[in-house]
């Protein structure tokens, strides 16, 4: 097994990050073209805890190196199953995802947590990302090690791109939100003058 783990801080409030998170793979993110589609499978709020649970299916363009893709059956897309849990009282987003493609051969389990940063809880958000990568196929240890090594390298490249792309989404969300607020205020002013 190989473990990839990283932390990062975003200069945005937890509310902004947790909202922007739903837009992470939309058109504002130019850094993750390997994510082709994001579908919501189910969504519910637990009445006793208030936690929002969402199941999503993420479709990616295959990014494995050619030798590995051929070895594993040569598909052009891969599927990821993700469940997320948003606890609005604790201000915590937890996302767990696993690979559905090649799952007999390789297990990739990722956990991402977003919570308010300890240093500046109202303006900054901290990210913790951990992935556990295990080759399950029988046979040579050497082959298993190479598969895990390649996967962890791809994973860390994609994680870096994901962070960059998410920054773009957060910046755009803030801009759009500010514009909408301004528009509303302009509208209100107009209405007020009309009443005078």
């Amino acid at each position, binding site marked *: 097994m190989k473990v990839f783990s990283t932390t990062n801080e975003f200069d945005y409030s937890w509310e902004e990050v947790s909202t922007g998170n739903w837009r992470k793979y939309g058109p504002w993110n130019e850094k993750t073209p390997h994510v082709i589609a994001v579908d919501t499978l189910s969504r519910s709020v*637990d009445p006793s805890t208030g936690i929002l649970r969402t199941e999503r299916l993420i479709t990616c363009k295959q990014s494995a190196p050619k030798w590995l893709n051929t070895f594993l059956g040569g598909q052009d897309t891969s599927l990821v199953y993700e469940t997320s849990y948003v606890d*609005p009282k604790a201000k915590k987003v937890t996302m767990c995802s696993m690979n559905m493609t090649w799952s007999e051969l390789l297990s990739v389990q990722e956990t991402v947590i977003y919570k308010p940063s300890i240093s500046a809880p109202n303006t900054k958000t901290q990210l913790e990302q951990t992935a556990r990568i295990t080759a399950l196929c029988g046979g040579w240890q050497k082959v298993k090690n190479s598969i895990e090594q390649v996967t962890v390298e791809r994973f860390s490249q994609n994680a870096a791109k994901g962070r960059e792309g998410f920054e773009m989404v957060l910046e755009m969300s803030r801009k759009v939100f500010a514009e909408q607020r301004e528009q509303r205020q302009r509208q209100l002013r107009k209405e007020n003058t009309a009443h005078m």
Partner: protein
Amino acid sequence: MSASLAPECNDVKERYDSCFLKWYSDKFLRGNAKEDECAPLFKQYKSCLDKALKERGIDTMIQEAREDNRENDAEHMKGS
């Protein structure tokens, strides 16, 4: 917003996604998420998506992933 894996569902998915996003930031995060006003749109989107998942044989893969995910559910649905 992102596309659906089934292009025929893109339209209704987009309408659902914007409804959800509005509900999430205006209601859910502010602690007044009593009713789910996006439910009718989700129903439409889901019936389109379920058909596509079945045709592609993905529905059984999802069932398996769900089984494997039970531990995560137990851990993260507890709340604070």
